[in-house]
């Protein structure tokens, strides 16, 4: 492995395990809230379609949540296994924040997950809704703490350095650090958007396969309302987040724009295309819209912001990567806004469920949220290099003292296992989506009747055993359940 250092391997490993992990919470944050909404709608209206949809998405949620849990435990430990110098240096600050995440979020999710997944016939409807709501709250609380920790590493404050270690001096300043509110909103809204796109794509897929029923229509319609309302809001939040980055991490912003230097008195254009070259210190083949860079990033006609040449060479993030990851994210965001607008147009005249071109677009944009989230995180994480705690601790000084061989071995193990495990998980989720929502029988066989056990034998999962000749199965029937 010529040219690849232990540091590179440690970074590749963290990026790999983190990228896989973030996809699952992104979906479960959105789905948990969606499930809470569906269950509430069912409690209020008692319409069968909501309970059918609830149990359909609950099964998918269960698989995604399981994958999120197991990939998340890896993350909790990788901070120490791969970045031990960082944990010793900044652990006094990161540790309590992460401990609060475990206490207020992970236990809450886990404690109520069992009842949410398996307790439908064991507790009353209101208590079951409470369990769903608690899981949803847990996912959001978790996002809050983890983004506080990440944001603090991006824009650290409220600390002192004593004896070669960071020591907390003001916890409120640490948690409510300058980039936290923007990053939190941006990520949570991204999770909602991602889920809306996945729910919409699943509905569109069913309709494209000529499986038209009220549940399918309801899910597509709900998803498109969400997209219509939230995608533009996300663009506004993103804009504020960008201004915040301009203020606190100007080198990152310069790299995102492939912007090298200012000409006195001249506005900055916005590059639509270009190949930033870190060696030559220029962006090749740049295609610019004059003044737009100034307008977007300084909200003024002739405003300037620092270029990469204003920073020492060893403090510049890789512009080639973040220039393009940022454009990928923004491009997908614009497509989401367009899809939402299209859905509104089609609602006039009731063509939403029958326009095949639209349904195909909704299907193809299904994974767009996931890709945009990855692109956004690549932008912000590569963009903060070479720092792991911005301006305080370099990534190169944060790494554990492992040899390249040990790291290459574990990286290999992670790559093979993750593709196998999460590949299989993806197949199972797609199978569930393909099968579509089924009728959920609210009435159960009388207690002690034939085939009734005393405790539920995995209602959600058991129903699927050997049953993928879709549509013929009972779906989420009460089989496998007893009391």
């Amino acid at each position, binding site marked *: 492995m010529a040219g690849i250092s232990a540091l590179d391997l440690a970074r590749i490993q963290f990026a790999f395990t983190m990228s896989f992990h973030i996809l699952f919470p992104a979906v479960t944050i959105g789905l948990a809230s969606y499930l809470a909404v569906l269950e509430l709608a069912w409690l209020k209206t008692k319409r069968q379609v909501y309970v059918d949809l609830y149990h359909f998405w609950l099964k998918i949620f269960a*698989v995604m949540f*399981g994958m999120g849990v*197991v990939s*998340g*435990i890896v993350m*909790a*430990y990788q901070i*120490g*296994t791969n970045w*031990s110098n960082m*944990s*010793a240096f900044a*652990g*006094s600050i990161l*540790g*309590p924040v*992460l*401990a609060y995440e*475990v*206490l*207020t979020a*992970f*236990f*809450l999710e*886990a*404690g*109520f*997950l*069992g*009842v949410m*997944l*398996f307790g439908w016939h*064991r507790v009353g409807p209101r208590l079951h809704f409470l369990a769903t709501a608690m899981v949803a709250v847990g996912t959001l609380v978790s996002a809050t703490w983890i983004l506080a920790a990440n944001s603090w590493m991006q824009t650290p404050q409220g600390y002192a350095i004593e004896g070669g*270690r960071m*020591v*907390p001096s003001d*916890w409120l300043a640490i948690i409510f650090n300058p980039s936290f509110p923007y990053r939190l909103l941006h990520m949570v809204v991204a999770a909602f958007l991602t889920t809306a796109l996945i729910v919409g794509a699943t509905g569109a897929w069913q309709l494209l396969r000529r499986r038209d029923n009220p549940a399918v229509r309801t899910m597509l319609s709900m998803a498109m309302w969400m997209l219509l309302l939230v995608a533009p809001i996300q663009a506004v939040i993103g804009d504020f987040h960008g201004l915040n980055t301009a203020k606190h991490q100007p080198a990152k912003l310069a790299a995102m724009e492939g912007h090298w230097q200012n000409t006195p008195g001249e506005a900055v254009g916005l590059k639509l295309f270009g190949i930033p070259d870190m060696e030559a210190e220029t962006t090749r083949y740049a295609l610019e819209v004059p003044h737009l860079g100034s307008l977007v990033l300084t909200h003024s006609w002739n405003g300037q912001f620092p270029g990469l040449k204003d920073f020492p060479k060893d403090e510049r993030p890789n512009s080639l990567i973040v220039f393009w990851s940022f454009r990928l994210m923004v491009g997908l965001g614009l497509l989401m806004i367009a899809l939402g607008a299209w859905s509104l147009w089609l609602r006039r005249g009731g063509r939403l469920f029958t326009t095949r071109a639209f349904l195909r677009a909704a299907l193809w944009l299904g994974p767009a949220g996931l890709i945009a989230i990855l692109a956004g995180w690549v932008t912000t994480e590569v963009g903060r290099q070479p720092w792991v705690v911005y301006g305080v601790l370099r990534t190169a000084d944060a790494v554990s003292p*492992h040899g390249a*061989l*040990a790291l290459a071995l*574990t990286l290999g*193990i992670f790559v093979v*296992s993750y593709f196998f*495990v999460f590949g299989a*998980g993806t197949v*199972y989720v797609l199978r569930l989506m393909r099968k579509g929502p089924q009728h959920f029988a609210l009435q159960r066989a009388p207690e002690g009747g034939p*085939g009734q*056990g*005393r*405790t*539920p*034998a*995995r209602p959600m*999962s*058991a*129903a699927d055993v*050997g049953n993928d000749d879709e549509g013929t199965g009972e779906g989420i029937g009460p*089989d*496998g359940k*007893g009391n």
Partner: protein
Amino acid sequence: MDIDTSVVWIVIIYFAVFMYVLLDGFDLGIGILFPFVKGKRERDTMMNTVAPVWDGNETWLVLGGEGLLAAFPVAYSIILSGLYLPLIFMLVGLVFRGVAFEFRFKAREGGRHLWDKAFIGGSVTAAFFQGVSLGAFLDGIAVSGHSYAGGALDWVAPFPILAGFGVIIAYTLLGSTWLIMRTEGELHERMIQVARPFALLLMAAIVVVSIWTPLRDPAVAERWFTFPNILYLAPVPVLVLLAFALLLGSLKGKPQRWPFVAALALVFLGYTGMAISIWPHIVPPSITIWEAASPPSSQEFALVGTLVILPVILAYTTWSYWVFRGKVKADAGYH
């Protein structure tokens, strides 16, 4: 503050890890026991006894880890980088074990055996490397200054390997006694048969560790066998013998709860004995809890929340167990 927050924190972390060993112990034990039970229905039942709670059980491991980072960042840094490979192997084991809970029921008929194997392999791997990590930790971690100074394979030594098998045995016993309590019929009977030899094996492991540890480390011998410590600590081995007698006695006749209670007591006593041996070190043999501690502002900030929230967590976790109480039967509904 008069209270030594480092002492409070080490107690909390011991408690979190103990809860983990206890709760995920029987979860992982069920995976280790899968090869002893061939039928699909029985295996379904075994899994269903823990399906609603395994995620919460595993969360205690995360609390132990993050608590360590919050209160003793130096120890977190040294232990996690020192035990790099065994911990990574354990985590990968937990990945395969964890997804099997869902995937096993989602796979087609022909693919299910794959997730049965993932469940078994993941459980055995996680249990073994937890033991190896524990053994290597007790064996002592090479430190220079405040960083790990050993090699990647320091854990490949007789004591950690023995500890790996010891933990497998302990978890199997926890798993089988849990199933005695939670199942009926043939599976129940089968688990009684399985529990007996594992009870004897665990006792043998406890005896070996109890003789080996003081022989290896004079400090441990001094802790246990000098006056007056020997008086204060005498109840530990006495209680071990009582718990063992209760375990064997309760496995005769028609056992329900008592074997599990006795197995818990054994694991608790073994765990406590280990804690007594290494006190007040957090990275044996060189770093004490006070040397590894984070500043008071960190320990106190995290402590306030922990002391308020932990009882609430215990309350709703207990509620969740209560909702799913009683015997679990394989359901005939979908056969």
